[in-house]
């Protein structure tokens, strides 16, 4: 760009030089000079032409000559400016010719003045002569010429005048003498009336004759003045100069055109460069504008965000239960919330001043250990720690927790933010809570121990019941056994050991012995089987007790052994474990097994729940005092769960009790400890299932539903 400009400037300079050189030839100067020359020529020829016209009376006014002369003088003496391109030598020559021309014009002027005067005189005489002759003739003799001599003279002179004017031939001496003869006549006849008239006529005739020659001579002189030749020479010199000037000019012109072309190229390049620069600029501007717009949008958004943040911050500040104050390093209070003011009981006007010192003074008066506080505040302001927390005790007994944090921007500390929290109540609560907690811990520990014990005892007790029942049953059966009859039979056979055959065949008594033996065999077999069964049950129950004890021993560990069990077996176990009491209290058990699934679960827990439920149902039935005591156990299932419902037609549960039936320690029985359902619910939960209760009301029975997953998920850890 810069280089192009420099080149352009250089070209322009060269252009100017060439232009000035070219200026050497000027159209204006040339035209002016040339037209001046033409005018001179024209005026010169017009002058000569009109001179002749005047000479021969074809023109009777001299006005035109005045104008010719004035114009020519003006041209030669001034307006014919030699163009600047004419060379010095030629200029001198032209000037010389001009000077010559000027003097020629002066000569012509003088000659012409003489010519005019003479021509006027001659023209006068020429006009007057015929008039005078005519007048004289009429005066002398209206009827003819009286005087022969005068008549002849007049005749002759008239002829001479007529021929003379038209002829260029010199007159004969005789002819030339005619004016003289006329004058002589006048002189000879002084008394004649027309002597004076004739004398004047003679003068006119003489004037005409004499003047003609002089006028002709003057006319010739004027016409032969070499003005035209002077103009011509001038013109020739000028033409020569013009030609060379034109040639020179055309050379410069060509150079000039070339340069102009070059310059045009440079300009075009400059334009192109300018335009592309412009486009670049425009692009840049538009990009910049877009950037600015984007920035603006972003800034607006940022501002909006900021405003939002600020409002959030302010709201946060105001909504927090803490008193917050931000203080700059120089002590100016930047921000605070109303909580801060109310905590310290600060009047708004003090806060409005935002003077940390005044604020500190007001605050200081409220704290215990004032000096310590002031020192701390000063220290904090001087060098705020990144984070600091301490507790202030106020004189009115309140305790504030102070949390100070340095406010930093780009690693530079600008001030600090102090956060005050009234912790008086919290500290008190915390203290009390801790006390309660301790008590609770003690209680729960005792309760836990009792619970475990109870649970163990309860469960063991349950099983022991069954053991007891089994033992009683075995004892009864043994007591009622037919086995003693074997002894009697043996005695009888011993008595008849001699005649046994006969006895057995003939004796009526002996005859029935084989039959009896067969019956006895059956009875005994039956007995044995029953006892074996009871013993088996007993054995099982003892194993169960062992299990319970082992389970209870690891109660705290909770996680029991997961087994795959059949739900109906489990239910049967539960019934069996309560079988004694059920039988005692005459409670019928109805089994309604829609499904018989095998599930994987902690058998003990499930059994414990079911035993509990059965027992509760038994109690409920028992309490109702009705005779058709019925316990119904139903199994159903949905997609993922086995649902075991234990229903009774006992006393039912009031609605208000339904909600707290699973609560720890809830019981309606005077000997109950309110642990069974509670632990049952817990166990159900641990099994990944649930335990719910339903009752239509008191006296309308109740049903408990245990829902268990097919597969026990590890619902507890």
């Amino acid at each position: 760009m810069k280089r192009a400009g420099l080149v352009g400037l250089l070209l322009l300079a060269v252009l100017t030089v060439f232009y000035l050189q070219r200026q050497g030839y000027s159209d204006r100067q040339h035209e002016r000079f040339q037209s001046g020359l033409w005018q001179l020529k024209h005026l010169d020829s017009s002058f000569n032409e009109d001179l002749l016209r005047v000479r021969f009376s074809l023109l009777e006014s001299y006005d035109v000559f005045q104008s010719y002369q004035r114009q020519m003088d003006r041209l030669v003496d001034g307006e014919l400016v030699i163009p600047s391109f004419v060379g010095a030598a030629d200029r001198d020559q032209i000037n010389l010719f001009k000077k010559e021309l000027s003097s020629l014009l002066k000569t012509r002027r003088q000659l012409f003045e003489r010519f005019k005067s003479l021509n006027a005189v001659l023209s006068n005489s020429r006009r007057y002569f015929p008039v005078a002759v005519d007048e004289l003739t009429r005066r002398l003799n209206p009827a003819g010429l009286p005087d022969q001599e005068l008549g002849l003279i007049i005749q002759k002179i008239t002829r001479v005048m007529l021929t003379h004017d038209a002829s260029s031939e010199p007159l004969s001496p005789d002819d030339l003498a005619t004016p003289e003869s006329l004058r002589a006549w006048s002189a000879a006849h002084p008394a004649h009336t027309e002597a004076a008239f004739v004398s004047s006529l003679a003068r006119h005739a003489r004037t005409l004759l004499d003047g003609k020659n002089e006028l002709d001579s003057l006319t010739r002189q004027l016409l032969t003045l070499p003005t035209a030749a002077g103009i011509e020479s001038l013109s020739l010199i000028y033409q020569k100069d013009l030609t060379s000037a034109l040639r020179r000019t055309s050379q410069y012109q060509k150079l000039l055109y070339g340069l102009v072309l070059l310059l045009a190229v440079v300009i075009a390049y400059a334009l192109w460069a300018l335009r592309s620069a412009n486009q670049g600029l425009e692009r840049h501007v538009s990009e910049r504008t877009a950037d600015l717009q984007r920035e603006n949008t972003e800034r607006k958004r940022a501002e909006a965000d900021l405003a939002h943040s600020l409002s959030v911050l302010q709201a946060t500040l105001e909504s927090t239960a803490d008193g917050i104050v931000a203080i700059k390093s120089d002590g100016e209070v930047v921000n605070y919330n109303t909580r801060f003011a109310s905590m310290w009981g600060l009047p708004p006007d003090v806060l409005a001043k935002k003077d940390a010192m005044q604020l500190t003074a007001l605050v200081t008066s409220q704290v215990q250990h004032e000096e310590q506080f002031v020192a701390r505040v000063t220290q904090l302001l001087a060098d705020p720690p990144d984070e600091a927390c301490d507790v202030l005790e106020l004189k009115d007994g309140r305790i504030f927790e102070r949390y100070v944090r340095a406010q930093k921007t780009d690693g530079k500390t600008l001030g600090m933010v102090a956060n005050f929290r009234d912790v008086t109540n919290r500290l008190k609560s915390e203290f009390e809570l801790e006390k309660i907690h301790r008590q609770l811990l003690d209680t729960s520990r005792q309760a836990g121990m009792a619970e475990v014990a109870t649970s163990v005892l309860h469960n063991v007790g349950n099983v022991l019941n069954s053991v007891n029942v089994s033992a009683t049953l075995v004892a009864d059966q043994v007591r009622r056994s037919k086995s003693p009859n074997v002894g009697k039979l043996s005695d009888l056979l011993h008595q008849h050991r001699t005649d046994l055959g006969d006895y057995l065949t003939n004796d009526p008594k002996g005859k029935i012995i084989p039959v009896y033996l067969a019956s006895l065999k059956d009875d005994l077999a039956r007995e044995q089987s029953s006892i074996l069964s009871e013993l088996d049950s007993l054995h099982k129950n003892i194993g169960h007790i062992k299990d319970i004890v082992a389970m209870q021993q690891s109660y705290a560990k909770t996680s029991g052994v997961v087994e795959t069990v059949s739900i109906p077996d489990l239910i049967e176990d539960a019934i069996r474990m309560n079988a004694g009491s059920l039988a005692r209290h005459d409670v019928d058990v109805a089994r309604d097994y829609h499904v018989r699934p095998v599930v994987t679960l902690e058998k003990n827990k499930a059994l414990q729940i079911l035993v509990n439920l059965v027992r509760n149902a038994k109690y409920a039935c028992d309490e109702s005092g009705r005779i058709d005591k019925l316990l119904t156990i139903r199994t159903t299932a949905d997609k993922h769960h086995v649902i075991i419902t234990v229903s009774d037609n006992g006393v039912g549960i009031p609605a208000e009790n339904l909600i707290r039936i699973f609560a720890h320690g809830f019981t309606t029985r005077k000997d109950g400890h309110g642990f069974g359902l509670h632990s049952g619910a817990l166990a159900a939960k641990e099994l990944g299932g649930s335990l719910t209760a339903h009752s239509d009301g008191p006296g309308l029975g109740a049903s408990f539903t245990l829902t268990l997953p097919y597969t026990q998920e590890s619902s507890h850890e």
Partner: protein
Amino acid sequence: MSIKRVKPAPTDRRRLWPLVAAGGALLLAVLPGCEKRRDDDTVRADPASVPVAMDEEPILPIPRGHPSSLDARKVALGNKLFHEPALSRDNSISCASCHPLDRGGVDHLPRSLGINGQQGEVNTPTVFNSALNFAQFWDGRASTLEEQIDGPVLSTFEMGTSWDEILKKLRDTPAYVAAFREIYSDGVQSRNVKSAIAEFERSLITLDSRFDRYLRGDPFALTADEKNGYLKFKGYGCISCHQGMNIGANLFQRMGVIGDYFADRGNLTKADLGRFNVTGREEDRHVFKVPSLRNVAVTAPYFHDSSAQTLEDAVAVMAKYQLGRPLPPKDMEDIVKFLRTLTGEYGGKPL
């Protein structure tokens, strides 16, 4: 359908125009033949240079509207100066003292009176139509009106002053200083005083004489006698000298072509030598500028020596010394009648 490149915005092109125009102007400036021709480069055609047709009368009417193209400001200033007594040494006389415009432009005295009552040498010619004279003064010693002004101003027996004196007086008059400054860049200068006065004199043209109207084709402008007078004027040869637009004043002629006027009159003065005083040539002895006959009826007395008091006297003298005979009374009468038709109007009023 395809979307081609978008054309450059019109604003782009518009913005380039001044540059293109500038380039064009530059090209035009350096190209030959494009220079503007100035009006004053061509020599103005002089109306008088138009060739006169043969069949025209020797006398031409002054064209109506003549003079054209005068500088009205100069004319006004010239008018003021023409009537300015400060142009004389004792502030007693102005141009108008001898050339009162309301009396035909002459004072009708045989010899005009200069400062201190001094008498002039020749009769004062009228200032009217003096712009049409081919030379000024009886002896034609000034070729222009400007030149003429030096004569009376410097002449000891006329205004008797100097340009220094005049310029000093004028420069002391704020009104003149302002008026000159307005017209001439160099303010009050002698050439500017002359220029203004001459410009005013160029405006002193008398138009529409009855004879002019006759020449323009109004046959009723002249009476029969007057027409006859014109014929006699031509027939006796008066027209030989008194021709042209100004009816004379375009050539010199000897006073007494036929008779010896000065011998008869006697009491020869230097002024009687006429043009001889200017050229020193013997042939110019007693040669004077042929005076214009326009307004001749109102510019008595006549001749350089004021020897003729009336037109009749003047015509008689001319007949005697230029023609060599007395004129018949009737012809003389008609010629005088004709001469009275040459009085024109100035400012819409006859002189």
